[in-house]
């Protein structure tokens, strides 16, 4: 005499959904703990020429004419990256054309000196980079205009190689990406002010 095959109850859809949500939450937590220090956002406020206090404009303010925001910020980004020896891999830059808002600008990989690595390790002692490799950094940057502010989202990606390695390889350990972007942010803000000055008086 044979028994009919036992039918196990199918898991309920709600249980599966809860399980999936829990797994997603864990994944997000793990990922965010690994890469949380590589992304930085900052804003740069700008004003219109007519909005200077009492008609006078101070040198420390970014002043941009209406309609010139995209070209001004594009020029500032290109000048800042160029000053720090970064080339742009994407997008293709066309002279006289602005980089659109929310478009990710990706640079090439620029080697980092050993002094900078030592400074990073001194500053971020929980994320020490091994001293037996060469390092380079690639920057990713996008911006959007929110009211009278440039809102920048930046990410620095660290690469490493040996002295005889054929190529750069992304560094998988922990590091403080903001440390490597800080000089770019400072130069970018200065370049925005320079552009503002250059465009203030035709």
């Amino acid at each position: 005499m044979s028994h009919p095959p036992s039918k196990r109850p199918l898991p309920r859809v709600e249980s599966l959904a809860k399980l999936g949500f829990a797994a997603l939450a864990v994944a997000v937590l793990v990922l965010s703990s690994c890469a949380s220090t590589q992304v930085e956002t900052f804003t740069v406020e700008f004003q219109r020429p007519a909005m200077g206090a009492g008609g006078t404009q101070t040198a420390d303010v970014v002043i941009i004419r209406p309609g010139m925001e995209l070209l001004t910020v594009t020029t500032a980004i290109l000048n800042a990256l160029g000053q720090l020896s970064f080339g742009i891999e994407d997008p293709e830059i066309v002279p006289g054309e602005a980089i659109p808002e929310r478009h990710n600008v990706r640079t090439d990989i620029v080697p980092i000196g050993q002094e900078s690595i030592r400074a990073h390790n001194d500053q971020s002692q929980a994320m020490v980079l091994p001293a037996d490799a060469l390092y380079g950094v690639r920057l990713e940057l996008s911006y959007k205009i929110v009211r009278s502010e440039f809102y920048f989202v930046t990410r620095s990606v660290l690469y490493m190689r040996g002295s005889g390695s054929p190529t750069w390889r992304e560094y998988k350990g922990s590091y403080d990406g903001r440390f490597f972007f800080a000089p770019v942010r400072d130069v970018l803000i200065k370049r925005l002010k320079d552009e503002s000055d250059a465009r203030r008086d035709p």
Partner: protein
Amino acid sequence: MKSRIILTAIWLLAFAFGVGIIESYLHIRDEQGIRILLAEDRIACMRPLLVLYGAYISGILAFWYLRPFRPSPSDKVERVRFRLAIACTLAFNAPILYLVAQWHVTGGTTQGVLADVRTAVTWAALASFLVGPVNLYYFGMKPRS
């Protein structure tokens, strides 16, 4: 039989030395304390050498089991042939190892380890005439009865 063993040993040793030289780049550091290769570079740098020696050694090992060609009728100049075979095999393999070891030889002034390995493989392709006939003769001939 002895000649085949010696030639096979030369090939296997050259292969082992080549792999060993590349492996050494993962463990030594230059004057600035920087590793020459990262562990992630290992396969990329070894692949051209593995392909090169894989082609030759697989042929040599296959001929140990399958010998398709008839033996030569005379063995009067066998000793000369063997010396010539050793010379050709060494003339083929020694430059390969020398080129793979360029980073050690020049103190790190080359274009990189992978570039050196590719140069070695290019040399091997150009100099394959040195070992092609020799390998066919020593590994492809049936033994005399």
